[in-house]
């Protein structure tokens, strides 16, 4: 992991999280003149991004078993799967936080109307069927 931002020393770690995308940035050449150049990413940024994604995945994993034990609804699982927490989910759905928390209750979830379910499914980029029929196994 290089640090000094000379063009010749700009990190080119080709990190996986960028998926081949190059980023533009400004760095100095050997004469000290700023110029635009590109980077394939820096390992440090990959570490911190994978960390937060790993944290959400972990929560999703824990939540999956809670869904199977009928302790919460699939909404909570797909929320973590899409890297959101409950306040963010509420905002993205245009609902109050307490409403979303209520939808986590399996008994309430079963009675949700089609429009609300479709709203969640669209946000989670899945079908309503996939939201309603949570698989028993991974």
């Amino acid at each position, binding site marked *: 992991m290089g640090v000094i931002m000379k063009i010749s020393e700009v990190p080119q770690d080709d990190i996986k*999280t960028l998926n081949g995308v190059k*980023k*533009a*940035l400004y760095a100095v050449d050997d004469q000290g003149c*700023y110029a635009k150049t590109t980077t394939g990413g820096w390992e440090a940024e990959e*570490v*911190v991004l994978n960390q*937060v994604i790993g944290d959400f995945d972990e929560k999703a994993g824990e939540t999956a078993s809670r869904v199977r034990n009928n302790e919460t609804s699939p909404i909570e699982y797909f929320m973590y799967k899409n890297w959101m927490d409950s306040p963010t989910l509420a905002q993205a759905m245009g609902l109050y936080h307490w409403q979303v928390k209520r939808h986590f209750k399996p008994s309430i979830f079963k009675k949700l109307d089609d429009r609300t379910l479709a709203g969640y499914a669209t946000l989670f980029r899945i079908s309503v069927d996939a939201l309603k029929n949570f698989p028993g196994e991974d």
Partner: protein
Amino acid sequence: MAKLKPLEHRHYAHCESGVVTALLRCHGLDLSEPMVFGITGGLTFAYIPFIKITNMPLISYRMLPGSIIKGAAKNLDVQFRTRRYREKEKALAELTTLVDRGEIVGLQTSVYWLPYFPPEMRFQFNAHNLIVYGREGDEFLISDPVFEHPVRIKADDLQNARFARGRLAPKGFIYYPVRVNPSIDLREAIKKSIKRTVRMMLYAPIPFIGVKGIHYMGRQIERLKIREDPRYVRLFLGHIVRMQEEIGTGGGGFRFIYAAFLQEAGRLMGSTRLEEASRMMTEAGDMWRRFALACARACKSKTGDFDAAEIAQLVQKCAIQEKHVYSHLKSIKL
């Protein structure tokens, strides 16, 4: 409508300064991205403990989304037409009409809904800017400044991206210049903007903004209880680094792009002292990178055997260096 130069896609460090730079060039004002970022007063530092994003404090190295557009209107004498919408259909109809008659427009979008983004980047971030420069059937032609090449997007996806809900919801926000002054006095604009940035960074009236905000963040890091909750500590440090280094920052929390601005401004105005300020700002950027590296190492450490005080020290150094930069800038008679 004035005659536009055709859009030439270029790769930029930051989305909003990239879009504004490209739009201005189409309208005959050819500035670099750092110049636009600097003149519109894009730089800041803010650590707001009581605004939480996924349970983390709001940390920003740049001004609020939309401020570069506003700054261009104010400091570069550009008149924009802007609009937000209540109805999605109306927004799409107007966009279609505009691009079909050859207008080149900026849009605010959510990266969560942009299919061409790397999957790992598609968080709920609603303030991504891009340019629409044409249409072919159901697809819009997109010049996204943080990508190397132009892309295309289906109308449905674009609609989702423009009408994502939540914090900073775009509400279909569309903007494009209607009047640009190609013979603007850059020197005057540079002076004004530097003064404004210096004042904010040195004398913000609340302790969460500017140099004081950086010190404040350092103190927060120093107080972290690694043993009690190592998971939170790692996530917290990771959160800071993401705000600082993620796509659209140009690295070092926008400090390098601002250093590039100071250098260009120094050459334009024949001021070696401004160029000196640029070197000092580069040094600040390097310090921020060193801090990021230490945080990344801490995040990777399984045992939690890192020293929060040491990491905090690196932040305090950034604050001290930045104070030098702004004090130096303040002392320059422009």
